[in-house]
């Protein structure tokens, strides 16, 4: 049966479409730009003991942190490159990366004080506007250090600490020393060791007992230097009964040679606390995004990871929650979109280490134009974690014949009295679905977008409003094959 050429009335939808094409047209300007490099200090490529010492000296760190970095460097140098995951991992050349770039002398408190180059970057990203409208505080990472960071007064009045990690170490050394690297030790894996040796920037968040931070805390990260590695370190501590939602979003200029982003993020939810950590990752498609994220949830605590991966050449990232106390809850919502030349190796890990703990993992991947989306997950229920309940759902959507989807679910159960469910689906965008939508006057590309948006909607609805908008736009751009 022939499908008649759909007639598109001048509706809001078309207007939106035009707007999206507009976004597409200036994508390079909006996200692919890079300012002339103008830094106070830029380390030569490659990693050495001298460099690590210099970073520590630059930051006037205490002796224990300097020793921590040097020990981590030894771990990094002594470990082989992992051979699991993606074959692309072997393309990372650690000698071809700048490990430390300093853009500004100190963290800035006022927008007016931020250097013009940096300001221009953030203006394009719309941070000040976003701050006025939505944010309770902004942490903006430009290169290796946070240059602009402001916490609204009401947060400070509540005793909430939200600052860059370097300042956190300087101003709250006791807290940092108590918790730093207790969730992810430096020799946890090769990339965590690398981060531990050269970390710079990232966020330090401390929420006092019983305090609910009503607005999400947000930080933007950005790479601007060719072959620049970014190694931010984030530590969030939520005292008993507190709540915080932290949001990170990434964009990066499009460069021809590879960059490395390797963060370490540690979350500590003390009894009854709740931490939600949302990421919209949109690195340009030359970035290797190799990140270790892990959380501890004590008794009655909840940790939620909402993890959206659209950009990068290769992402390997599996946010984890260790449910250490009774009735703790862990939740991982993951979206991965793999376009041409991309491999999104994402997923999550939940470890039930205490009785009556509960968890959900919902992972959705979309592969298009030969992209590869992988789900890699672990669900572990330890001996003694009786009454544990968990549900794992991983769905993959393939948009064409060339694309690929893999699922690597691991489930280990060492306790009898548990309830575990696992579902996995792989589907293609069906001709009948397309036909149905097109018969209602929707062009084929629009119909595909609608189907994809419907597929990921259960997760985008969990995002803060402005991020949900950005996420939908990014998905649209991916659908048009115009990212990177």
């Amino acid at each position, binding site marked *: 049966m022939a499908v008649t050429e759909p007639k598109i009335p001048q509706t809001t939808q078309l207007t939106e479409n035009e707007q999206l094409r507009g976004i597409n047209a200036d994508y390079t300007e909006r996200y692919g730009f890079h300012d002339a490099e103008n830094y106070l200090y830029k380390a030569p490529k490659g990693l050495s003991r001298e460099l690590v010492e210099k970073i520590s000296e630059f930051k006037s760190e205490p002796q224990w942190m300097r020793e921590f970095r040097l020990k981590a460097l030894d*771990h990094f140098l002594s470990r082989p490159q992992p051979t699991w995951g993606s074959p692309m991992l072997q393309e990372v050349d650690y000698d071809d990366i700048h490990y430390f770039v300093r853009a500004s002398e100190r963290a800035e408190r006022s927008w007016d004080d931020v250097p013009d180059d940096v300001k221009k970057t953030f203006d394009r990203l719309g941070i000040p506007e976003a701050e006025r409208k939505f944010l309770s505080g902004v942490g903006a990472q430009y290169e290796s250090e946070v240059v602009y960071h402001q916490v609204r007064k009401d947060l400070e009045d509540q005793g909430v600490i939200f600052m860059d990690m370097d300042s956190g170490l300087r101003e709250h050394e006791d807290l940092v020393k108590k918790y730093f690297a207790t969730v992810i030790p430096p*020799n946890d894996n090769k990339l965590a060791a690398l981060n531990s040796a050269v970390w710079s920037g990232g966020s330090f968040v401390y929420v006092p007992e019983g305090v609910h931070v009503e607005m999400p805390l947000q930080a933007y990260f950005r790479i601007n230097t060719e072959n620049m590695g970014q190694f931010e370190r984030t530590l969030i501590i939520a005292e008993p009964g507190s709540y915080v939602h932290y949001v990170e979003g990434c964009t990066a200029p499009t460069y021809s040679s590879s960059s490395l982003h390797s963060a370490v993020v540690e979350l500590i939810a003390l009894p009854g606390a709740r931490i939600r950590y949302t990421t919209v990752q949109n690195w340009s498609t030359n970035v290797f995004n190799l990140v270790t994220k892990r959380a501890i949830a004590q008794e009655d605590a909840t940790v939620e990871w909402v993890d959206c991966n659209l950009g990068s050449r290769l992402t390997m990232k599996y946010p984890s929650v260790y449910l250490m106390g009774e009735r703790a809850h862990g939740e991982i919502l993951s979206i991965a979109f793999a376009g041409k030349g991309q491999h999104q190796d994402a997923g999550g890990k939940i470890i039930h280490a205490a009785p009556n703990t509960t968890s959900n993992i919902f992972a959705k991947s979309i592969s298009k134009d030969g992209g590869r989306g992988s789900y890699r997950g672990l669900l572990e229920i330890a001996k003694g974690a009786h009454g544990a309940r968990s549900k794992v759902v991983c769905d993959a959507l393939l948009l064409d014949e060339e694309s690929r989807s893999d699922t690597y679910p691991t489930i280990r159960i060492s306790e009898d009295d548990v309830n575990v469910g696992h579902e996995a689906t792989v589907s293609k965008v069906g001709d009948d679905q397309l036909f149905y939508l097109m018969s209602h006057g929707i062009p084929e590309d629009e119909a595909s977008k609608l189907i994809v948006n419907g597929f990921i909607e259960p997760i985008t609805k969990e995002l803060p409003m402005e991020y949900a908008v950005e996420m939908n736009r990014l998905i649209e751009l991916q659908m048009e094959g115009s990212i990177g």
Partner: protein
Amino acid sequence: MPEVIEVCPVAELQPGQVRLVEWEDLEIGVFNCGGTVYAIEDRCSHDNGPLAEGEFDQDNCTVECPRHGSLFDIRTGNPKTLPAYVPVDTFPVIIEDETIKLEVE
């Protein structure tokens, strides 16, 4: 029924020193933390790493698994950092006739 095995003369395990002993299919790390001797199973509960080969901090009485970095309290066998979350077995230490002995079963 517990069995008592000999490790070594007290003089041969000075503060800050570690010794590995085997009993049946068990390997046990014996640590002298500032004059007090403790014994834990030489197998990290995370990924079976050889704990006695890890960095021993006798001031804090901890050992760091050389495989993935979990820090264990040698006195209790409890992990102080992830990725390990299950304690390792500990063994009672007996000092008798100037000899370090362990109670195993």
